[in-house]
């Protein structure tokens, strides 16, 4: 996967055939022109979030130029970041995502190792099955899952519905299949000689995994971790179905159900909340863009 991130521009020959190089220059100019258009299209909503988040309610309802802030204020940020409710959403989201990432890695790394290296009865079928599971969307499973957990609560008395930790059981269904799938790809690309040498030297399978596979496939591991985190952070349908009390909500659902009260939209705060909710994935993306992209492209290109 690392090849994706290496720029293969190739040696650019200085060909001066007149028309050819003029064509190139024009092609480049058009490219930049359209790229700027597309960049504006891509960045308008996030920038508009930022612009609105800096406005006071009075300025928003005064309907001045929506693209400009005349009296920038941080009051929306201060209000949200000192509100216990909002911080609660934030912590719920953070806890859910971090624990789900841990669970995902604990399940998918050993499984991927076993599926990539320790061929056993049915391992090929299982690998295909894992990939198929990844293609099953959340919107197909939320109703039976909801009913399942409700019935489970009735039978055992352990009430999981409307508790934030129910999400710890459900999110892995979204993250584990994909992470296992891309880790199989990364593990399969490690030369066989490496683990053969380790086995001959007397390493156990577990040692082979922790001492050789995990360090060598670290870029893949990071990509899988980022994927698991962003999926858990962004998930909207499951928390909307499973949690209703305001102290159990995660960030996306919390913002939508508490900041939108009937027909009254406090847009300054909604945009601030949305921007703060988008911040963790954006920060991770800003610092680990290459891993992020590697994980993105790995899903479909690994075979």
């Amino acid at each position, binding site marked *: 996967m690392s090849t994706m991130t290496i720029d293969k521009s190739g040696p650019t020959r200085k060909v001066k055939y007149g028309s050819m190089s003029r064509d190139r220059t024009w092609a480049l100019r058009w490219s930049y022109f359209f790229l700027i258009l597309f960049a504006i299209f891509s960045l308008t909503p996030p920038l508009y979030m930022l612009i609105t988040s800096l406005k006071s309610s009075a300025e928003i309802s005064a*309907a001045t130029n929506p*693209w400009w802030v005349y009296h920038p204020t941080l009051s929306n940020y201060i209000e949200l970041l000192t509100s216990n409710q909002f911080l609660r959403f934030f912590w719920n989201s953070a806890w859910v995502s971090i624990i789900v990432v841990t669970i995902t890695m604990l399940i998918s790394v050993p499984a991927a190792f076993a599926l990539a290296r*320790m061929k056993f009865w049915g391992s090929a079928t299982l690998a*295909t099955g894992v990939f198929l599971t990844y293609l099953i969307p959340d919107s197909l499973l939320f109703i*039976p899952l909801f009913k*399942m957990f409700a019935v489970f609560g009735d039978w055992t008395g352990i009430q999981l519905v409307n508790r934030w930790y129910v999400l710890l059981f459900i999110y892995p269904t979204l993250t584990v299949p994909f992470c296992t799938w891309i880790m199989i790809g990364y593990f399969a690309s490690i030369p066989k000689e490496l683990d053969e040498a380790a086995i001959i030297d007397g390493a156990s399978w577990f040692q082979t995994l922790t001492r050789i596979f995990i360090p060598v496939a670290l870029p893949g591991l990071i990509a899988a971790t980022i994927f698991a985190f962003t999926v858990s952070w962004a998930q909207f*349908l499951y928390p*909307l179905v499973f949690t209703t009390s305001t102290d159990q909500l995660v960030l996306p659902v919390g*913002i939508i159900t508490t900041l939108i009260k009937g027909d009254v939209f406090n847009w300054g705060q909604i945009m601030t909340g949305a921007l703060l909710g988008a911040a963790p*994935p954006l920060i991770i993306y800003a610092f680990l863009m290459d891993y992020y992209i590697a994980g993105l492209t790995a899903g479909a290109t690994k075979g």
Partner: protein
Amino acid sequence: MVDVAFQPNRTAAAQSGRRRVGLRNALRRKSMSAFLMTLPLILLIAILVIYPAIYSLHLATLNKAMTKFVGFGNFEFLFKRETFWLVVKQSCIFAISAVVFKALIGFIVAHFVHNVPANKQRKWRGMLLVPWVIPPAMSTLAWLWLFDPSYSAFNYTLSFFGIGPIPWTGDAMWARFSVILVNVWYGAPFFMIMYLAALKSVPEQLYEAAAIDGANWWQRIWYVTLPMMRNIIAITTLFSLIVTFANFDIVRILTAGGPLDHTHIFATWAFRVGIEGSDIPLGASVSLFMVPILAVAAIFILRDITKRGNES
């Protein structure tokens, strides 16, 4: 059974007797430990994916109170409802047009990014991928605010060009356009990244050969780029078809199915009926209608992926 997968030359490689014993122990435990390592995965998939999938088939055959078996009663009821056919139509319009536009825009933008000098590509790629990174629930809120009936920033801008206020989410046709637009905005970067990766894997020599043969840029795209990228285009499109068809966040937040159920797709209507209307069996029946299309797309993806696996 244990020895089958392990190549026989491995044992020959281990010369000393002591080591062979260690190896044999490892081999003996291999199948068992492999099973233990995959057990959590198997349990997770069995309990939380396969069982609910089968359970939803069962749920779909119950009455609203879930006390009586009604067979295909829920489906018959759905077929008689006008809203259901509206949902089927809208789901298909939504998924197909969104995927087509995402693929087209992604393809075009990938070419433009590929055109600029290599050292600047990273910056552009970084900017253009932002829509994909923001959680869709959050970015859809920004779109909702951009589409606001009374304070729409788009309408403010368009008013300078003499274009009257557009009811972005109020009118059925415009609302359909809006949900597709937001979906394209969110999904096109994924196509762009995939196609860019594919473009970089096309050998430069092919283009040189085509240029020598006098191919113009259109012929280069049609006869060199597209055939080389065919597999990635197929997989990405099918994959996106699944995700778009099963989309929930964007429609739910932007229009919640309105106006008058004209933008409901399967996922949002299943939520409306099953969770909000607390008719779980009917909701399960609605979401089951996604299965045929998802299954067809999944089969094609799987075929492509195994084909790639065999080639390499």
